[in-house]
């Protein structure tokens, strides 16, 4: 592993600092949501038929599954099993794409039902936050593709798997954000 005088790899420290700043980014949006939802008399929450709780639940399971396949990909490369690593990376990315596909369908349904980013406070927050999350997913898919390609080229093994680990940290964080957004928008 790549180490320095502090005993902390630079890449890992950089990723955690980045993730901390991401916590602030999402935290700012979510706190604004809490204030307006609890404080504004004009905060209309759309009915269940528009929100579609079952589909969002399926999407939550898809993302959780993609998180476990990601961590299994890391475990595989830590055991020098490149084939299994590649399989789990592909599976992770496919699950990520499934999530985005379902999200796209949800957006289509909601917009056709009249819930848009400019239809009201709820719509603004819903599309801003889930949109920001979806952009993070796309970023994660690109990161995953980079890691997969380099893994197939034999760049990673049981001694050098840092980038797989960092891609994993990012991917789990994106999953973690969804774990919070899901109850915030669909359940409460």
């Amino acid at each position, binding site marked *: 592993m790549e180490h320095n005088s502090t005993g902390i790899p630079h890449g890992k420290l950089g990723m955690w600092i980045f*993730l901390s700043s991401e916590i602030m980014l999402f935290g700012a949006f979510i706190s604004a949501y809490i204030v307006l939802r609890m404080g504004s008399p004009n905060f209309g929450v759309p009915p269940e038929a528009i929100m579609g709780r079952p589909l969002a639940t399926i999407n939550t399971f898809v993302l*959780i599954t993609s998180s476990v396949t990601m961590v299994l990909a890391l475990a595989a490369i*830590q055991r020098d099993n490149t084939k299994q690593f590649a399989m789990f990376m592909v599976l992770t990315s496919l699950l990520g794409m499934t999530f985005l596909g379902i999200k796209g369908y949800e957006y289509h349904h909601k917009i056709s039902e009249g819930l848009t980013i400019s239809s009201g406070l709820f719509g603004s927050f819903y599309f801003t936050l889930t949109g920001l999350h979806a952009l993070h997913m796309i970023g994660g898919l690109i990161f995953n593709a980079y890691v997969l390609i380099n893994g197939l080229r034999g760049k990673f093994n049981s001694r050098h798997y840092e980038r797989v*680990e960092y891609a994993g940290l990012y991917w789990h964080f994106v999953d973690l954000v969804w774990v919070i957004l899901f109850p915030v928008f*669909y359940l409460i």
Partner: protein
Amino acid sequence: MTENEAPHPASVKPYILVFVGLGILTGLTVFLSYLGLPRHTAILLAGLIALTKVTLIATFFMHLRFEKRAFVFLLLVALFFVTVLVASLIKDIGLIH
């Protein structure tokens, strides 16, 4: 090399257990949301379940359990400021009501 032969130090069993736990908690929170509980109870329960899931992901999938404390500290700093952000806005909610 199959999984069974490999003398890997880091077993994948905890990951699977965490995955099952996350699945059960997701099912539970969705189930609770259909019960029509009083608003405060519903928010509290959904919040607690989400917090448990987040902790599980950070601790096991993101390996915080095995990391140096510096990373946990970094995370706590960010969480502290998010709490400050939310707490400082609570006054505004009170003003509107």
